[in-house]
């Protein structure tokens, strides 16, 4: 009740002062669209910021060789050799919004700051989706048979341990196992217990069982950290999940690189031809990405 009273007083003061802009900002309550708050891009890819003029070529210099010393001889030299690759096809993302100035004044569509924030978030979402698309495109039974499994159901101990074994072999070790809560929770069914090979003796980790009982999650398994992500839905109307629920990622190393090319550019202007004028705001940035070490990641896919 007190809150309502304060709100009514504030609204009344704004109406009295004639500040319609402030009033509009106050009385319009939005259910804002949601965005992915986990930075998937940097989780999987190194990132660099390039400027126009920077090289888009990667070069590798191979090592030198050592020969036996034969005193008095002219020893073999090795000319320095370089192997190079042209890596990046520059790409760009653009988000542009427009609204009538009356709509802004009456608060129908929110404030300029809110919309700019939303636009920046959409750019980031777009790049995160690039990563998700890459995950489904690159890591398949055909492309990466040693780094992919299609489970076809809930995660199993065998699938998870095989994935961790593989990443321990191909990289410096597993940094994290990452997935949505729906995909990761079944690990709690087998992660807190230990059976010998005959299956007749089972050891139970009391702290792990207690952790599962309290949180529904398990923090570590098979020597690795488990990171459980809570699902986010885009908005209350479409209600589409933003984090894939059909895969768990076993991450060993960054598998590639995401480069931005120049800064996020912006422009805003008002088209004065219509009356009231039409407002435009636009953000854009150039970027590129490449998966150049697919074996640094294991995808446990086909989860349901």
């Amino acid at each position, binding site marked *: 009740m007190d809150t309502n009273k304060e709100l009514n007083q504030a609204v009344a003061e704004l109406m009295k002062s004639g500040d319609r802009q402030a009033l509009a900002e106050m009385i319009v309550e939005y259910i804002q669209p949601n965005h992915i708050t986990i930075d998937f891009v940097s989780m999987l890819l190194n990132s660099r910021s390039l400027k126009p003029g920077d090289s888009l070529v990667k070069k590798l210099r191979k090592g030198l060789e050592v020969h036996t010393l034969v005193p008095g001889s002219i020893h073999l030299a090795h000319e320095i050799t370089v192997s190079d690759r042209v890596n990046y096809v520059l790409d760009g993302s653009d988000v542009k919004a427009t609204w009538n100035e009356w709509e802004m004044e009456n608060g129908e569509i929110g404030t300029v700051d809110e919309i700019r924030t939303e636009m920046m978030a959409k750019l980031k979402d777009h790049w995160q989706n*690039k990563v998700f698309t890459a995950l489904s495109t690159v890591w398949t039974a055909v492309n990466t048979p040693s780094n992919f499994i299609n489970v076809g159901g809930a995660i199993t101990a065998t699938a998870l341990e095989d994935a961790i074994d593989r990443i321990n072999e191909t990289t410096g070790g597993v940094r994290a196992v990452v997935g949505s809560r729906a995909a990761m929770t079944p690990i709690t069914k087998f992660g807190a217990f230990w059976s010998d090979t005959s299956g007749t003796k089972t050891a139970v980790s009391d702290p792990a069982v207690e952790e599962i009982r309290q949180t529904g999650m398990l923090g570590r398994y098979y020597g690795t950290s488990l990171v459980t992500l809570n699902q986010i839905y885009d908005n209350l109307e479409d209600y589409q999940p933003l984090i894939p629920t059909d895969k768990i990622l076993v991450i060993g190393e960054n598998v590639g690189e995401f480069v931005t090319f120049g800064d996020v550019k912006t422009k805003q202007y008002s088209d004065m031809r219509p009356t009231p004028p039409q407002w435009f705001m636009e953000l854009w940035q150039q970027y590129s990405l490449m998966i150049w070490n697919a074996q640094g990641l294991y995808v446990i896919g086909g989860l349901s």
Partner: protein
Amino acid sequence: MEINHYGDTILGVVTTSEIVEGRMVCLTSHTASRDYGSLTDVPGAKLPASAAEAARSRYVITFEQDNRSLPLYQPQPAFDWALRYGWDQAANAPFSATVYLTHPGVQEGLTIPSGVGALAFGEGLYTVPSGCYVYAATIEVPGTQLEVAFTDPDKGKLQVYNAGGIVAEVHRYYSDGRLTFKILH
């Protein structure tokens, strides 16, 4: 091609074949994709192959803008992905490519490769060099109505109206063969 006056429509498109800058194109679908899904939200552009397509070829095509350092290479070699450190695939350098010392968009009559971004200009005034249209004596007359050819080797070239769909009209003909035309709304 020279842009003299453009209107509100400058569409980003994807070429579905090699197209000489300055040709008239219509919108279509395409299968190009880049960097895991880019370009898929952009319409394709094609040279008209029928009277119906010619009638809706109301866009003149040119190169997209580019801020890479010169010289430019076309095509630009790249890897989609590699299993191991980026070096387990056959080298993509050295490579064979067309080298541009000046951005092709500020030159005239060069060919836009297939499957890349390009700009489709709608209503406005544009000047194309000789060879970008089908000559007839009446094309030198301002106000002459123009349609788009849809048969080889003139696909996408403007020509004097002959029972097709009128998409443009002559603004000025230059003695050196350049033609300024206005794409109609």
